Structure formats: C-alpha cells, structure tokens
C-alpha cells in the first residue's frame, strides 16, 4: 500500500494522511493508491503539509507498517528516548519498529 507523510508547516510535527486530513498518528494512515501525487500537490499548495512524500507500506494487523525503518521511526519517535515517542507507556513499541 502507499501512504503519505510529511511535516506540519508551523510545528514541524510528523503527520500522516488519513483520507480527509493530516493526522499525528500513523495508525490513521490510509492507502492512497494512485492518488498520491494529486493529494500531495493539493495539500502542499494549501500549506496544510510541508514536504510531503509517499511511502510504501504493508498492512500489518490492520495498520500500515512502512517498509523502510526510517518511516517507522518517524511514525513513533526516537528509539533512544521512549519517553518522547508517541507511545511513552509502551516500551515494546520500539522493538516492534526496529
């Protein structure tokens, strides 16, 4: 599947396209099929996202899992600071992405 990610222009936060808007949570990411370019062009010119790009992912337990570790790290946070990830209460989350 193809999912979209980028950063919020003002805050810099990592965001994922959920089909209607940009979400902070990779769990909300949806398959955009062949719409990637069109959505990115539209959203970037509206400044709702900064530097978007498409990511190949695999549906795993109903959730998109990016194929490249870089995007999995983006989806969670720094693996060396569990307290600063999006799942500070779930230390196993780090093992799941690396």
């Amino acid at each position, binding site marked *: 599947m193809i999912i979209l990610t980028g950063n919020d222009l003002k805050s810099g936060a990592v965001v994922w396209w959920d089909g209607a808007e940009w979400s902070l949570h990779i769990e909300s990411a949806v398959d955009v099929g062949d719409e990637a370019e069109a959505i990115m062009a539209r959203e970037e010119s509206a400044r709702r996202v900064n530097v978007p790009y498409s990511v190949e992912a695999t549906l795993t337990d109903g959730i998109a899992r990016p194929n490249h*570790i*870089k995007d999995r790290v983006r989806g969670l946070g*720094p693996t*060396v600071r569990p307290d600063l990830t999006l799942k500070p209460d779930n230390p196993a989350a780090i093992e799941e992405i690396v």
Partner: protein
Amino acid sequence: MYKYDQYDQAMVDARVAEFRDQAQRRIDGKLTEDQFKPLRLMNGLYLQLHAYMLRVAVPYGTLNSTQMHVLADIADKYDRGYGHFTTRQNIQYNWIKLEDAGDILADLAKVEMHAIQTSGNCIRNISSDHFAGAAQDELVDPRPYAELLRQWSSFHPEFMYLPRKFKIAVIASDTDRAAMRLHDIGIQIVKNADGEIGASFYVGGGMGRTPMIAPNIRDFVPLDQLITYSEACLRVYNRYGRRDNKYKARIKILVHELGAEEYTRQVEEEFAHLLEQGIEPPIAELERIKPFFADPAFEDGTKTVDRSDPDFALWVDRNTHRHKHDSYVSAVVSLKPVGGIPGDATAEQMHLMADLAKEYSFDELRVMHTQNIVLPHVKIADLHALWTKLEAAGLGTPNLDQIGDIIACPGLDYCSLANARSIPLAQKISERFKANGKEDTLGELKLKISGCINACGHHHAGHIGILGVDKKGVENYQLSLGGSEAEDTALGKITGRGFDEDGVIEAVETVTDVYLAQKEDGERFLDTYNRIGMAPFKEALYD
C-alpha cells in the same frame, strides 16, 4: 572572552528581524519551501525526521555561564528539556516549531548568540581548540584570529551561495585538538624564523563520502593579510568548485582535481589582485579583539592533588588537561555517561555546568568537538569540590578519550539523512566495555560512529570507526580502523564486509582483543594498529 560592541549587536538584531520576516513569509505562503529552504538553512533551521531542528552557533566553542543558562532556558521553553552538543562545537535542539524560531533567535541575541550560518552552503561557524587560552603547549590563543574570521565570514556578500558548505578551524599549537586538517580550511597560527606570528593555511580537507587530509598550501601568511588570503581561497572555490554534483562540490574535490599546486597558484594570483583592493581590516582591529581573550587573574595555589579517593584520582587522571598555569587544570565534563546519548545534556545539567563555570572557571565554558564540555580554568585546589558536584549530577564519568567517550551523530533516531541508528550502538558499546571491565585496560581509544556517509560522527577519523549503511532497508554497519584526527591525521581503512547491530558490537570487542593480545609497552590501540597493520584484525574478524 569576546564581547559584542554596538555594531556586532546590531548585526545579530538585524538578523533576528530578517529571519522572523522570512519565517513569517513562509508561513503565509509568500515563500515556497524550495525558496525558503536555503534561507532557513543559513540560519541553522533544518527539517529533520520528527520536527524542525535548530542549530545554535557557539563561536570557536567558547561561551560564558549566562549564555549556557540561556541555552538551557531555550531547551525548557521551546524544546523538550534538552539539547545536543555537536562535533562542530555547536548545540542543536530537536523539537523546534517554525513559529517559535524568531522568538528563540531574539532570546539568543540578548546574550550575544545566534544561529547564523550554522548550516547552508556558506562559511560555517569557525571552530577552534577547546583548550585555547588554557593549554600549556599553545603558541598564542587562536581565538582572536577565529573572531576576526567570524566577523569577516558573517553575511559575506560574495560567499553565501558557495558550491557546498565551508568549514574553517583555527588552532595555535602543534598538538591538533580540532581536527584542523579535516576542514575545508585549517589554519595553524605559527611563528616564522624571524619570530613573527602568522598563519599556515591547509586547504581541502574534509570527511564525508570522500575523506581527504588538507595539504598545506602556504606555510606563512602575515597577520595583516589573513583576511585577504582567506578571501582569495574562497573566491577561487566559489568560481571553480564543482556545482554539477553535490557529492563533488566540496573544496577538497577542487583541490584534489586541480592538484594542490595549481589550486595554490590560482589562489596566489587572486591574492595578489585582492591585496590591491583594501579589504583587510587594520592590525588595530586584531589588537582590539585580543584583550577580550586575555588571561583571567590566575592565582598561585595548590599544585598537587589529594589522591586518597581512587574514584576522584581516576577522574583527575582521565578528565583533566595540563594548564599553562601550574595551579590550574582544564577539566572535562563528560557528556558520555555509560549507556547515555553522546552529547546530550538536559536543561538542568546545562544550568549546573553554567553555575560551576561561574564558581570554578572564571565564568567560561567550552564545547569540545568530541561532544563534551570543558571548564578551562579550574584551580587544582577546587577540583575535588567540582568533581563531587559533577558526580552527583551524572556528569563525572571518567572516560575522556576512552572507548566509552564515543562520538556519535544523531543517526536515524533524529536525522533525515541517516541510513542507520548511531546512538543505540554507542549506548550498547559503552555499556559492554564498562561491564566487562575492558575499558580500563584499553587506554586511549577513539571510537566514532556515523549513521551515514556524510560522516558527522567523524568515523573516518576514529581509531575505530563505524559507518551505518542501508542494506535494503535494514541497518548495517561497516567497521574501519586506524583513523586519527589529531596531529597524526589519518583516515581509517574499512575492515571488510559489514555487520548487523549485534555483529558490529561483537566486532569492536574482537578488534580490541587483538590489540590487547598484541600491544607492546606503552602502545595505544592506534599505535599497535599502525605497527601490525590490518591483517591480524581482519583474520580475527572474518576467518
């Protein structure tokens, strides 16, 4: 240390206003990301893996306690309570919001700090010897020359869009503590046969994907021609450095392709022309700068250390450096706790280091390129009190230049360019060598880790270097041996095929075991490697 006058202050204030306006234009959509990117980079603002990252300049690594307190305040107010000290003596924050950038710069400007030219294809922050003004072996304090170059390079109208980034280091001792020959321009302040002070220029060094050691292109530039000569070096590069391929755009490639001799000829020709242009500040300007770096009021005192506490004695042996005044030492605050993140410091730790600098080191601190902090002028009589406070804050790890004192770039945990993570490796290696007790038997061993070919972790210059690579989406690590960034500058050689994370940690232990088995009296790891060569290490690793 240097103090801004109204002109310096006006320059940084103007920059705050300019960047605030640029950021606002980006937010308002008047600038596209393509147009904004080079502008924000010239102000140290990156878009990283998780957020914007802001790199703040610490000119030649020197700062005072007020500045360190503000760095801590910024970490608390605008970031997540910590900062990361870098291999170019700067500090960077990982969780910055674009809309806060102007306010952060304004806070910095109040204490004579900025983020000017900490990134982008321009002349970067000038780096120097972290023991400048304190080391027993220096000819003069190199920082006045670095300050002169800082002002010249700030907003230089001709050199803001160079082919690639440009890094300058200035030292003034034969012992190189700044990796001088691995810079685009390395300057050593020297004395000639007539006893005059001048500058020896090394041009075209660098790490990255094609590491090179800079050749000397002129062994003596008179001080009243220092800026003019630098300008000539830059103009030749700006005109002829490659722009067709970003990986061949650094000056090292130009010098290499032209040959040092031809590059030098062109520089000399340009220099002769520029000498007629009146672009050199008067010597009086250098003389104006020098007193800012005058010695503080050192006092005679105890010259010996009470070694009855072995932990303290070990810290003194490892983490202090000989001072030019025999009642003082330079003390190194390790930002490499066992299992910690190299170079990271919490706001609380920064506040403490600032307080300790105020109390024990004439209000001065230095950032080392090895990602530690120096208190340059500590009375030997105060060392125990200082150490006690550092220990209590987790800042007293006695590991300077030991295997646990690892340089590591942020790697794939933070950096959008990285191919592999660096920090977890550093954490695991320092833990392993502490647990197995080998750190204490290995002596000086410089381990450096980069998460990609850009080599921010200086892996080429590590006695042991580790480079993270992307093997079809999986982290993989190459090992290299025999590098050095000291006065015996050398580039490490790759051992052979790479390893996974556990494998490379195992491999580091294997090569240290070869060293321990083969070393002769007084030999460091690097010395043994240089004597016996790669073969015994390779054999142990792969056979």
